[in-house]
């Protein structure tokens, strides 16, 4: 086990707060260790969502998780957005803020997706500079998540994990390791997911994400619409044994079941924390690539529908 560099507390096993569960949580006070909330949902809302957030923040630790920081965009840092984010982080006492290592738009557009960046020296320098500005302004650690990607650039001069490692080293931001995203990207780009984990300094990992996905044969979509598959649990086990105690969170964004089902899924992570290492995990199978196939119009439509969770 390795302490994280910022001595951030390990809250335990959390669940992503979603509006369909508001009433259940307020009425039943489930024994959840902590909640992660999508920052943008609450930044300017003075309505019911803000009321619910305040009530939940009174009872549970909260961590803000954003989707529009766009740290990888060639646009400059949006300080108007950061002002709102800082006010919210102070309000709910979020010990750190997290977002994604990606870009969401350029020229002040927002396409509301987590888009891949070319892993180049130029991108690295630019993002390091922006991450430092963000942390200085926010006065709390910035933790960046590896995203699921569906495209890679020939102009990249380093691997995704090398980029993450150097970014964290040079900017002093932390990593939110999404083991499902590692699995998805490993499948889509045919790399070894274990190597990704091995190359990241465990002390820089501040949090884990777990989620379900949709395997379309030709590629995997990060849909957050189901239980975590066994191979992803194995990856979590593998990663966790390198880092030890870190906040672990389950995301479920589509076809969201009853709160208890989501919470039980999150608590499965406990088993992996407490169990001894499984020697077979050292030979974790790489995802296999299905032969190229043509999708029927119905399958295409289904594919599109499965990608529709709203950021």
């Amino acid at each position, binding site marked *: 086990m390795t302490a994280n560099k910022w001595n951030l507390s390990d809250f335990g096993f959390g669940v992503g707060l979603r509006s369909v569960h508001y009433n259940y949580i307020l009425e039943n006070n489930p024994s959840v260790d902590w909640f992660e909330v999508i920052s943008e949902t609450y930044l300017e809302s003075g309505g019911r969502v803000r*009321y619910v957030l305040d009530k939940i923040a009174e009872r549970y630790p909260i961590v803000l998780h954003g989707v529009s920081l766009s740290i990888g965009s060639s646009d400059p840092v949006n300080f108007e957005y950061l002002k709102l984010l800082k006010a919210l982080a102070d309000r709910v006492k979020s010990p750190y803020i997290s977002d994604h290592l990606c870009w969401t738009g350029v*020229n002040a557009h*927002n*396409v509301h997706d987590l888009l891949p960046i070319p892993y180049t020296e130029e991108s690295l320098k630019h993002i390091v500079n922006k991450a430092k500005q963000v942390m200085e302004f926010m006065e709390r650690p910035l933790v960046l998540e590896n995203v699921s990607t569906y*495209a890679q650039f020939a*102009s*990249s001069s380093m691997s995704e994990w090398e980029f993450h490692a150097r970014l964290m080293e040079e900017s002093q931001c932390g990593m939110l390791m999404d083991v499902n995203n590692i699995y998805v990207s490993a499948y889509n780009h045919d790399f070894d997911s274990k190597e990704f984990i091995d190359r990241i300094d465990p002390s820089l990992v501040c949090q884990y994400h777990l989620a379900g996905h949709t395997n379309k044969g030709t590629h995997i979509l990060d849909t957050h619409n189901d239980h975590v598959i066994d191979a992803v649990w194995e990856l979590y086990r593998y990663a966790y044994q390198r880092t030890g105690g870190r906040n672990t969170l389950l995301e479920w964004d589509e076809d969201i079941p009853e709160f208890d089902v989501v919470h039980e899924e999150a608590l499965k992570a406990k088993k992996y924390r407490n169990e001894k290492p499984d020697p077979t995990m050292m030979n974790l199978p790489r995802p296999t690539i299905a032969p*190229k196939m043509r999708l029927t119009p119905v399958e295409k439509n289904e594919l599109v529908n499965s*990608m*529709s969770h709203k950021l």
Partner: protein
Amino acid sequence: MENNIPLTTIQRWMQSVIEHPGTNDEAWNSEQAQKELPFDEAYANVLPSKTLTPVERIGIYRKMFFLRMTESMAIDYPGVKNVLGEFEFDRIVAEEYVKKFPSHSYTLNHLGRYFPQFIQETDLRNKAFLYDLSRLELSITNNMDAEESPIVHQQEIASVQPDQWEHAILIPIAALEMLEFDHNVCEYLDAVIEEVTVPEIKNERTFVVVYRKTYRTYWDILSSQQYFLLSALVSRKTFSESIALLVEQFPDSQEELQQKLFEWFNEWVSSGYFSKIKLR
């Protein structure tokens, strides 16, 4: 080996492809995309996977983009979608609206802010009705996020001395908006939400107050007299000024108004329209 396509060029190119309506090929060959990166250079810069071509891989992001846009707009504008039909609604949003009013916000909740304006500027069947309906739907969406205000209770009203009423100003809650329409939009939207048969679209002068009480948004139809008086009060005119204006506007109904004023006022206070009373 790093080639030298700048980050900003790659991102401008990719965004132009993602945002371009039509097929993948049309998007890659669009004027904007070509301006950022010629096709061959762009194609060489996106790696294929074992199963997907560069065009198909970027196509995944394109499909997700248009789905997000249409789904987000459908959440805010169920009534407009019902009038246009799913296919036409999605087409208009994807091919025209998002192009004209791309998202500049950190949240998709703001995407539909310019939809009434867009409808007004676009050639559509039932355009006048759609314009009214979209204004009502936008008001409802905005209302849900408006700041919460404390509300004036009947006891506070009762504590105001009779001679103080003349100069009293009633401050409305933040989550209250007054709207006028030329069509039966409330009736139509209620039917869509309740999933019952929608009424025939018709011209009908309609006065509406959209407000929130205990974190729930309501839209109530008012009479023209109620609307006139409430509008005056909401615009911070004193109580006596508001009533004087009402009487002046509806001189033939003076007696009837005197009877109804108390009833209306009580109803508005109990509905939570006002956050405080300012006494001079």
